[in-house]
């Protein structure tokens, strides 16, 4: 046991390990805060769609040789989020889910095409795989990456705290909120922008295909055990940070891929919470 602790301590000497832990914890925190609303609004599928839009944008940024792919990925994903949440809201000509599938699949297809045509890299498959599944890239973060992630996360958390009660009201009963003067449309727009930011940040940690796990697992796990919005929000935030940290540690010690280990930790946590919820309901 002490041997393991010593080994961990020695790992933490490396800046890249500390960076990975910071980025991982922040990403997990942000995605879980929004996850509660997304799951409750039945919008959890949007995380999935957006991550594909972000993938396309990052691929194009790579093809254009942009030094920082955030610059293209963030605005593109925000626009995608606004369009998707609006069409998900109802009165659109194309049904929400069909529109979502169309946009996200095209973004992904175009992204891969652009990468393929323009890539000078010898390891194209490896690059694509990294963007999809979150590679070792979280272990090679630069200080700029860490700061960018910290700033975006701070913004997301600030928005969430400032508008917590409004987000609750708009999520619980949009009609009532709109009727009594809380602009449901404006908050939906704000939510979609924030969700897009979270998705782009989370691409670093788990990659495009596994982001949904970070959004859905914490919220669903917390809902198994807790029954008020506040308790569910707090619990899912803690759950997500613990699972992400545990996943990153295990992946460093065991040399497994970071993204999939984090997702596996989330899945294990979900099973544990499911069992606790079952026992609580029995008594």
């Amino acid at each position: 046991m002490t041997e393991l602790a010593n080994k961990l301590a020695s790992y933490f000497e490396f800046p890249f390990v500390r960076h990975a832990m910071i980025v991982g914890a922040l990403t997990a925190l942000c995605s879980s805060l929004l996850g509660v609303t997304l799951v409750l609004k039945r919008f959890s599928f949007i995380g999935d769609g957006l991550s594909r839009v972000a993938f396309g944008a990052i691929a194009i940024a790579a093809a254009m040789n942009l030094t920082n792919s955030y610059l293209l990925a963030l605005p593109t994903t925000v626009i995608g989020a606004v369009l998707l949440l609006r069409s998900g809201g109802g009165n659109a000509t194309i049904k929400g889910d069909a529109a979502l599938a169309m946009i996200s699949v095209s973004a992904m297809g175009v992204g891969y095409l652009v990468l393929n045509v323009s890539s000078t890299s010898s390891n194209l498959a490896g690059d694509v795989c990294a963007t999809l599944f979150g590679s070792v890239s979280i272990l090679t973060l630069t200080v700029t990456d860490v700061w960018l992630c910290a700033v975006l996360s701070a913004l997301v958390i600030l928005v969430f705290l400032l508008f917590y009660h409004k987000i609750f009201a708009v999520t619980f009963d949009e009609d009532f909120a709109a009727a009594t003067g809380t602009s449901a449309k404006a908050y939906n727009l704000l939510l979609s922008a924030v969700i897009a930011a979270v998705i782009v940040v989370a691409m670093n940690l788990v990659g495009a295909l596994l982001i949904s796990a970070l959004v859905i697992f914490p919220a669903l796990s917390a809902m198994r055990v807790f029954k008020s919005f506040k308790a569910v929000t707090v619990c899912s935030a803690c759950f997500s940070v613990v699972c992400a940290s545990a996943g990153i540690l295990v992946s460093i010690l065991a040399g497994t891929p970071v993204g999939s280990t984090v997702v596996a930790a989330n899945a294990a946590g979900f099973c544990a919470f499911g069992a606790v919820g079952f026992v609580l309901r029995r008594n």
Partner: protein
Amino acid sequence: MPQLTCRNLTLGYEGKTVVSNLSFTVNAGDYLCVVGENGSGKSTLMKALLKLKTPTSGQIQTGGGLTRKEIGYLPQHTAAQKDFPASVREVVRSGCLNRCGLRPFYSKAEKRMAEENMENTGISKLAKRCYRELSGGQQQRALLARALCAAGKIILLDEPVAGLDPAAAAEMYELIAKLNAEAVTVIMISHDIAAAVKYASHILHIGNKSALFFGLTADYLQSEAGRSYGRL
């Protein structure tokens, strides 16, 4: 002083007209009861008054400085999902949100108001319970408490006593009458014609596609529509 004025209002869904050519005025302090058969468009009208639905034609004018921030609303159905984690207190407090403006947290006065309204609707003991695990009547009371929190100048209630036991229904009517006595305008949809006649100052009877009657309660009892509906 007119708070709401409807002129030649026509409402419908995707080209299908539900109510047409409706004109009436609600003054500050009025107690208007909207009656009519199922499907005659009462809820649709209420949503239009709340600007949740745009009219096909006609106008709805607000007057007397009424803004959305002073409206309480009890919907007939809530979109809230079956598995939504929310305590009764959280739901009731969300009614105070329109008083908050951009302030991120509830003030002491708003929290006290939520407690008082839970007391008045008899759900203080349920404050910590999960909203989705309550009975239909208990949920209705929680939503009424939320509407009471939101009501500054006017309250719109869509079938507030549906699902309540008779004693609770009587209490609810008294509560609404008390609110009305404090100069809050009430617009209520109800199938309980006896209570409507007892409490309301005005009646709007919506028939198939058009208004059968709008006016004072006393006149309604003498009218054709009132007499035939009262007998049912």
